[in-house]
């Protein structure tokens, strides 16, 4: 890939690097490969197979796992005959008392509300495309929301926090893990899968009604 002087009338044949603004000929890489900016090495676009199918699969798995993660018990702690089951809602509610109540809202948002919102937004934006229909009203905004929320979706970070917390309480009490814990753990795999499959540039092109 190399740069050439402007300006082609057809802007569609050019692409600018998002990280350094270098103007380049748009070259679609071979299947399964990514195209990088020659100057700063930022990923320009990737040519992954079945982007829509795979992204939808990730979003639907997230939604299902989240339902399981919220409904089932997360962890049980036993000490001197006292048993305590903690659901994820308990973990979220831990901050609810006193002046640190705002943290409750933040933690609930990071580990449940935002991941679920992202999943729903992705499904709404992409499901019609999957069945060869025109994108739904507001599909562009919906996809934009999903991408903007990405750094704030922290289910995978939460599970690392749980692991650290468990080490801290092992001498205090016996701990057993519930189905919700495993649902959260599975979410890590879904996040990794989504990161490897989602090419924003490709999806934006597919969402454009004029260029399909």
């Amino acid at each position, binding site marked *: 890939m190399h740069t050439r*002087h*402007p300006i082609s009338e057809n802007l569609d044949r050019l692409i*600018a690097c998002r990280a350094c603004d270098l103007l380049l000929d748009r070259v679609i890489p071979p299947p399964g490969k990514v195209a990088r900016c020659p100057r700063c090495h930022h990923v320009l676009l990737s040519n992954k197979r079945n982007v829509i199918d795979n992204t939808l699969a990730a979003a639907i798995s997230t939604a299902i796992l989240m339902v399981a993660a919220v409904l089932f018990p997360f962890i049980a702690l036993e000490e001197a005959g006292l048993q305590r089951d903690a659901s994820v809602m308990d973990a979220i509610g831990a901050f609810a008392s006193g002046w640190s109540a705002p943290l409750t809202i933040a933690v609930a948002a990071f580990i449940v509300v935002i991941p679920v919102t992202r999943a729903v937004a992705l499904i709404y934006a992409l499901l019609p495309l999957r069945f060869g229909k025109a994108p739904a009203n507001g599909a562009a905004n919906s996809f934009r929301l999903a991408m903007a929320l990405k750094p704030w979706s922290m289910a995978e*970070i939460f599970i690392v926090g*749980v692991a650290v*917390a468990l*080490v801290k309480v092992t001498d205090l009490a016996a701990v057993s893990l519930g189905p919700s814990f495993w649902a959260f753990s599975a979410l890590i795999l879904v996040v990794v899968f989504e990161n490897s499959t989602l090419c924003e540039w490709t999806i934006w092109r597919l969402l454009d009604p004029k260029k399909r």
Partner: protein
Amino acid sequence: MALAGPQETITAREAGLVSCDNCGTLAPLGSRRCARCRASLHSRRPNASQRVWAWLLAGIVCYIPANLYPMLLTSTFGKVSEGTIIGGAIELFEYGAWFVAVIVILASVVIPVAKFVVIAMLMLGIRHGSRLSAHRRMQLYEFTEFIGRWSMVDVFVVAILSALVQLGFIASINPGPAAVCFALSVVFTMLSAQSFDPRMIWDSLEEHPPRVRR
């Protein structure tokens, strides 16, 4: 405008174009909205430096009480002890859980402080030039953006401990004020990194050409 490199390069801005930050569609410079996704168009993120510095300052300000106040309030048999971030990590070391202690130190000290330093360094480098190559600075930026959110681990640890350890008189753990300060610090620093426009690094090369070092 040419940059020393294997071939002549031109940016979208120099070509009179603006690329949509959202979907990557190109439009003539000066267009207000993207024709494809309707996002508003900016060749460079508006007021990027002010925003980066403002969020960074807020992040640093919140990080100070996060270290001074207790993160955890632990009461065992009616006796309350307060644990700071550093205290908690030292306890873990003494307990022999060094792997977890390293995670806690990384999430609560190394990553936040490294983020403050890297963002400030990137901003100063743009204004005054830097000894690091643009490429290296780009890597630092991408790494900072990637790693920053992992600091939130600490807040989740506090949340889980407080949920689990509520055994009445025997033992109970509650969040301390530092947990809130720390969470705010992480959020502000993430916003600072998000406000940063990496294109500023490359633009600044015109004013501050890379210093050749052998």
